């Protein structure tokens, strides 16, 4: 521990900080002896799964713990000032000058009933600046976060801006006071990959111009790797590993870090090659008495000593690990995982799903809005079609069309096993309805909170499979076993289950009627990586056993690559590229696909030169002429792009809608082997 600082004090210093939440008269410890030191100008990443205490660190630093949370002990300093001794005016002063925070969901961080300008000006108002000077500084600040037309944005209300714009405004607000410490709590979660990449680029750029230190909290290892110098890994309120980001991610010295990294679907890994690794077991509940190492119960290399003796933070020269056996952590060699899907895809069978010229036009204020325009594709039984595109590209509308929640425009045709489907679910016979099911992103809102798991699954079985009595009970046990739940879970209600378990219930519900097609709408994007891996494994297994087809919507290209056999890329309701997953990922690519792929941050820190898309996705009410992508296309050829919609150029079952000859289209060098 350093007693005297000669040079400027660290921007943030946490020394053996303990934080607890008090519930029913008992202190539940959520942070245990956490020590973090962030030097001026340094960017520090904090990773870990939900419930590990990442956000509690931020709340503690900002002194905004909920009413029942309090710091039990340790030292907390911001720029050399003891946070625990500040009185209210001093705390306010510190917030006004020294610390800023950006959190997830910028839309909610902005006051809905005040203009953006008013909210931005407040930052200067607190600093005692007003009038024209403040307005000019606000304009300059918005320009710094690459907002063109600051005056227009200042006059807007938050809901009139897109998610990416909102996040820029919040970042501008946070940086306006030139803070010594900027805390970013999941700033890109919920944003599209392209927008996420832009925000990350922006933060990286601004780092160079401002002197702020950064505490970057995220479960997205790629995002952390692209911004941070050093990284800390939190598990159950303990800092289990810390060190330079590159080293920690390429050569982890704690089994938890290693397991987290192994859960990620690596480039090139697909369901046909190997199952994903998961972390068995659960996070200890807050307040649990932990003897020995906190990760020991879930650790594959735990020995007796790990259960008895709490590991100290071993100093490994510039990095530390809280593992007795930090020398033995073997990152590369996981367990031998067998491929999930063994059966090879049989070609030229009757497709399970066929779409022919399907469109959906909404009418907004008398104007036509082409949410989905002229989409044709097929999906074989037992295969997965990945639907990829930014928000507003028509992915969700397409899913709704399949399920019959909205009726397609006349002229389009959707076929299930060669039989034409009625436009809406209400007109479809029961067997068609049960043949098409959906798993939603958020199982919380998809499952009725008032019912038990037994009721939820039982109802699906009686409604969709028409089962009663003993046969229903037998089938329920089979289904529950198939999604790896146990009989014990049947009596519980959704709120008593973790996110992953809830998603299993939702999957069981969808599979109750033995569906032919399951639409998975971002089924893992609300889940932690280890739980995501388990759910992806489960989906792959169920697919193999039951020859069910998936329409898999996700903005996470790594996840899509793992599960998909075919990929469709949508932009403004138009199909831009369609082909076998391997071909879509290796190229040649449509310029849009190429931009999407290049936007993915990789946790190895090596990132392809990102292809920047200009501007925002145009309004579907007023789509560009010619090729819908021409306004943002980095490879626009010329006039032809503005006048003529390019045809689908197809070769080997891989179609690309572009004027550029196939041979000249880009191929990305893979980010990692």
């Amino acid at each position, binding site marked *: 521990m350093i007693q005297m600082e000669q040079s400027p004090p660290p921007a943030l210093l946490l020394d053996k900080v303990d934080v607890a939440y008090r519930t029913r008269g008992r202190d539940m410890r959520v942070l245990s002896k956490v020590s973090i030191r962030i030097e001026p100008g340094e960017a520090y990443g904090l990773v870990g799964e939900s419930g590990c205490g990442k956000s509690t660190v931020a709340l503690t630093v900002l002194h905004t713990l909920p009413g029942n949370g309090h710091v039990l002990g340790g030292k907390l300093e911001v720029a050399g000032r003891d946070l625990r001794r500040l009185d209210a005016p001093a705390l306010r002063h510190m917030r006004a000058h020294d610390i800023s925070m950006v959190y997830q969901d910028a839309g909610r961080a902005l*006051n*809905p*009933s*005040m203009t953006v300008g008013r909210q931005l000006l407040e930052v200067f108002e607190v600093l005692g600046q007003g009038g024209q000077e403040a307005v000019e500084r606000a304009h300059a600040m918005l320009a710094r976060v690459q907002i063109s037309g600051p005056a227009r944005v200042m006059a807007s209300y938050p809901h009139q801006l897109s998610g990416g714009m909102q996040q820029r405004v919040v970042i501008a607000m946070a940086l306006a006071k030139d803070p010594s410490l900027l805390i970013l709590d999941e700033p890109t979660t919920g944003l599209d990959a392209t927008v996420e990449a832009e925000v990350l680029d922006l933060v990286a750029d601004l780092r160079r111009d401002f002197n702020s230190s950064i505490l970057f909290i995220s479960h997205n290892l790629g995002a952390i790797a692209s911004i941070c110098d050093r990284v800390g890994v939190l598990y159950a309120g303990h800092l289990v590993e810390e060190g330079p980001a590159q080293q920690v991610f390429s050569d982890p010295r704690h089994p938890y870090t290693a397991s987290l990294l192994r859960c990620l679907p690596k480039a090139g890994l697909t369901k046909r090659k190997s199952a994903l690794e998961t972390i068995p077991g659960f996070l200890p509940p807050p307040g649990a008495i932990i003897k020995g190492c906190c990760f020991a119960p879930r650790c594959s290399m735990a020995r007796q000593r790990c259960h008895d003796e709490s590991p100290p933070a071993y100093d490994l020269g510039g990095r530390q690990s809280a593992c007795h056996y930090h020398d033995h952590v073997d990152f590369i060699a996981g367990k031998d995982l067998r491929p999930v899907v063994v059966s090879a895809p049989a070609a030229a069978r009757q497709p399970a799903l066929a779409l022919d010229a399907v469109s959906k036009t909404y009418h907004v204020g008398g104007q036509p809005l082409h949410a989905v325009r002229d989409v044709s594709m097929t999906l074989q039984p037992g295969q997965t079609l990945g639907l990829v595109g930014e928000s507003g590209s028509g992915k969700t509308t397409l899913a709704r069309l399949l399920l019959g929640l909205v009726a397609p425009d006349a002229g389009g045709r959707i076929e299930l096993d060669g039989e034409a489907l009625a436009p809406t679910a209400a007109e479809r016979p029961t067997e068609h309805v049960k043949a098409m099911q959906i798993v939603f992103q958020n199982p919380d809102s998809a499952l009725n909170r008032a019912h038990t798991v037994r009721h939820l699954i039982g109802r699906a079985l009686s409604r969709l499979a028409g089962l009663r009595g003993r046969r229903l009970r037998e089938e329920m046990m089979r289904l529950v076993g198939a999604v790896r739940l146990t009989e014990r879970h049947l009596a519980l209600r959704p709120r008593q289950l973790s996110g992953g378990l809830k998603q299993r219930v939702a999957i069981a519900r969808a599979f109750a009627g033995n569906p032919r097609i399951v639409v998975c709408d971002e089924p893992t994007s609300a889940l932690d990586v280890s739980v995501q891996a388990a759910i992806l494994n489960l989906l792959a297994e169920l697919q193999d056993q039951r020859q069910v087809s998936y329409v898999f919507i996700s903005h996470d290209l790594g996840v899509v690559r793992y599960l998909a056999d075919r990929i469709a890329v949508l932009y403004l309701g138009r199909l831009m590229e369609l082909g076998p997953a391997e071909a879509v990922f290796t190229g040649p690519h449509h310029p849009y696909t190429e931009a999407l792929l290049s936007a993915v941050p990789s946790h190895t820190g090596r990132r392809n030169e990102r292809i920047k898309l200009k501007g925002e996705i145009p309004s579907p009410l007023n789509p560009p002429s010619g090729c819908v992508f021409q306004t943002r296309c980095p490879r626009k050829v010329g006039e032809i792009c503005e006048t003529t919609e390019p045809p689908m150029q197809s070769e080997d079952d891989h179609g690309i809608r572009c004027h550029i000859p196939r041979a000249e289209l880009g191929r990305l060098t893979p980010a990692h082997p």
Partner: protein
Amino acid sequence: MGKAIGRFVLKRLGLAVLTLFLLSIVVFAGCMVLPGNVARAILGPFADQRAVDALNHQLGADRPALSLYWEWITKLLHGDMGTSYTFRAPVAPFVRDALVNSLKLAALAFVIVVPLSILGGIVAALFAGRWPDKLISLTSLSLTVIPEFVSSIALLLIFAIWLRWLPLSASFPADAGALTQIYYLLLPCLPLVIVLFGYFARMTRAGVVEAMASDYTRTAILKGLPRRTVIIRHVLRNALLPTITVIASQTSYLIGGLVVVEGLFRYQGIGSLILTAARGKDFPMLQGGILTIGALFIAAVLIADLIFLLVNPRTRTSLR
């Protein structure tokens, strides 16, 4: 933006006309099926049957319903509410005087209860879980469940009979000035304040608690703004939106639903006017009174929606 609001108001006015039309049918039909005979009610049980028939004919009560309705509604559209059966005089002045009285009572109750309950709700929310919150929440909840006729009697006993601070009757002298009128109306106001306080205060408390827990409030706190500014500028504006709607929905109760209070305090409001009319089978008076309350209620809701619209930019831009 201005155009959008204009269109919104026009649309709502159209709906209001339709609502009033339907209400007129319901009211009229209701009067038709009320038991008893108009002239018999007026002339008394011992009157000669011929006299009763003659009066019925004179009043037009013996004609078919549809033609009666048509006559009534066309007159109404020309501003003529008809002639009272009981008083043999035009209905409109009665309704107008009663309405003015009711509005005075309602306005006074509003002026007292709205600031008081909003303030109470805010204080309770800011001290959520601590003693001021417990005190306010418990008091308001217990007060809300006391019906106004019970509290009226209690208040009358305490303030008018024992303490003799306030007059027993609310009927102020004809030449009374504004302050004297308020003095007379204070006592009948209190039961209303008691009933509404808990409702408004709890609504406000819920809104403020939610806004205090919101991310935008945290943003404001983390800007280093003083607590006062955070609450006034960021919390209240969003927190009071639901309260506005609730307050507006209570206007019809305050204006037309005070039969008991008006009766107890011998006050000539529109509630007691309607009650008297219903008892005396004075249909023109009854119909005129109810339609007036209906129109007032619709106007109150429209005004509340407009306020909601003006303070809530999200609904403002979603207008088409």
